[in-house]
């Protein structure tokens, strides 16, 4: 499912992360791996970054960074 259609405060499960090496590694380090659940908490007044809640942590991601994550429908 395309990430931009996701709605706020709804829980999603990660199906796959596909990005260039640098971003992919950082996303994995931050906990974005297959099977992990996350939700989008808020969005900046300027449209991005998004604030994501994942496990017990919060991570801010740009639109491009978030869109490299594919979620289960």
């Amino acid at each position, binding site marked *: 499912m395309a990430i931009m259609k996701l709605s706020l405060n709804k829980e999603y499960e990660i199906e796959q992360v596909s990005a*260039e*090496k*640098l*971003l*992919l*590694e*950082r*996303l*994995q*380090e*931050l*906990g974005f*791996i*297959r*099977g992990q659940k996350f939700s989008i*908490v*808020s*969005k*900046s*007044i*300027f*449209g*991005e*970054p998004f*604030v994501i809640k994942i*496990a*017990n*942590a*919060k*991570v*801010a*991601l*740009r639109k491009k*960074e978030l869109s490299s994550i594919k979620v289960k429908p």
Partner: protein
Amino acid sequence: MNHVILVGPPNAGKTSLFNWITGSNFKTVNYPGATVNYFEGSPLSQYNTDFKVIDTPGVYSLFPKSQDEMITHNILNNDNPNIHVQKAIVVVDATQFERHMGLFEQLKSVKIPVVLAITMMDILKESGQSIDTQALSESLGVPVVPIDGLLGGGVSQLMETVQRLEIKEKQIEALKSSKSKKSHPLNQLKRWEKKDFENSLNNLFHLKNKTFIEVKTRKNWHHLKLTESLDRVLLHPFFGLVFFFLVMSGLFTSVYSLATPLIDLIDGWFGTMSTWVLSVGGGSLFSQFLADGIIAGFGSFFVFIPQVAILFLGLILLEDTGYLARATTLVDKPLSKIGLNGRSFVPLLSGYACAVPASMAARTITNKRERWLTLFALPLMTCSARLPVYALLFAFFFVGQPAWYGGVALALVYFLSLFFGALFALLLKNFLPQDEQSLFALELPLYRRPRIMPVLSQVLAKTKYFVKKAGPIIFTLSVLIWAGSVFPNYDMEDDVKRLQTSYISQMGQYLEPVFEPMGVDWRVGVGLLSAFAAREVFVSALAVVFNVTEETTLDGGDSEESIATTLLEKMRTAKLSNGQLIFTTATIIGLILFFMIALQCIATVGVIYQETESVRFVMFQLFAFNLIAYALAVLVQQVSHLI
């Protein structure tokens, strides 16, 4: 001495742990070849250990993505001949256990002896969960020590465990061979593929679900609840922005109200000291050298310490509460429009104290172009050395007016400096190649009360860095300028004549044609040249060339104010050789613009060179800034003649 390295993700409580281990007995060490600091300290004697502990910048993995993460990597790599890492303490946050264990897995594959320290156990307990450290230790095959995040319980057990930790034969060999890069254990990591990373984490998730984390009752704990409710406001699209501006203006007003009395105090001390030395020495050349050269030279950078330290205190407090990460997120979009990154925010903000330690903060920016653009715009921020200059120039405009006029003017200059910063970054943006990906992905830590010791130690480190880097340069140039204003006719009775025939005046007069288009004469030129020691020296240099001495102040006093008032009076009537007034509105505006842009601070130039290691970049910056500053001042002056 053997070293034990503390490794852990950002915000895992590494620095708190380091403070508990060492008391406050640690020092900052400059990593050779880089401007980066790390902390080295000996554990408190009660722990009976025979090693030193190193605190490193936080990393999520052993694949460094920015310069500060590189430091941790290099230390582990035994790159520094003074460090011999034998063991590692991996620090993970109990509440982030699953995510943080990836780093542990990587370190284990490096084959360095490891102890796992789990912090924030108290917070986990709040949520009705706990980690079975015994079972975890058996499963991982390494000792696991829980640390109470609030009271520091478990530190002595940790030290005992590390001391007892045996280094296996294989590990010794691996560590010994560390000098030959190829066989170094860290290089084995190259075989780690992205799948391994994901698999290792996946395994951990399964492990976790099996036994280690016992869930008694699953409830949202206090810290998370607090963070959730605070973020509803602070990350709110509208109120978040309002709060951001409130925090920033609060930060700046409190910095100035706190720093001003301290600056006056320090200024007073140095003034008293040099008067005393002069009177004891009977005005001999040597006593003048001590008083006006050495003591005044020290004074000229000591006066910056309060403001630099207090702004850093404010910044680090904000960082420690967790707010700064939110502010960084908020400004990411606008900053990325001009080629910067949200992470440029902290260095730019620090630039309002002093560009020298602020340059260090740019190391967290992954992307080279974004880092360079940040370093390019940084010297344009209104640093503390510019304030005395603006105060003098504003006073010229607003004498007899309500005090808030000056305040508004200063605020205007602050915003204008942001504008120039943005403009300059935007202009250079297209000339720097963008060959790396831009990365933001920032973790927002839970809000918490700032911890005093780690905050103070960071303020101390940053202030020390300022004193060490900027101090010697400001001091040397101040002494040189003093000498230039006294020699060659140092034995002349008449102070004014002595100055007028001095080297510095000769140089000013020689260069007068350069200053003329700005609408100023050689005297202001001398002031501008002196400002290369530190911008604020402009004020004291003007006082010297306009012959404002204790005897000549209007009310006969030697206080700061009476010198400033007298200087203003003299400036008001100062004329060019053609009889025109020097300090017209156009001249003052030109000078303000000049000081906003000119890159006069040699210490900044030096540090930016260290950070970029590019002579071309620094030379370009130096010439471009000074030429643009000069051209603007000339432009204002010439346009005023046309009107």
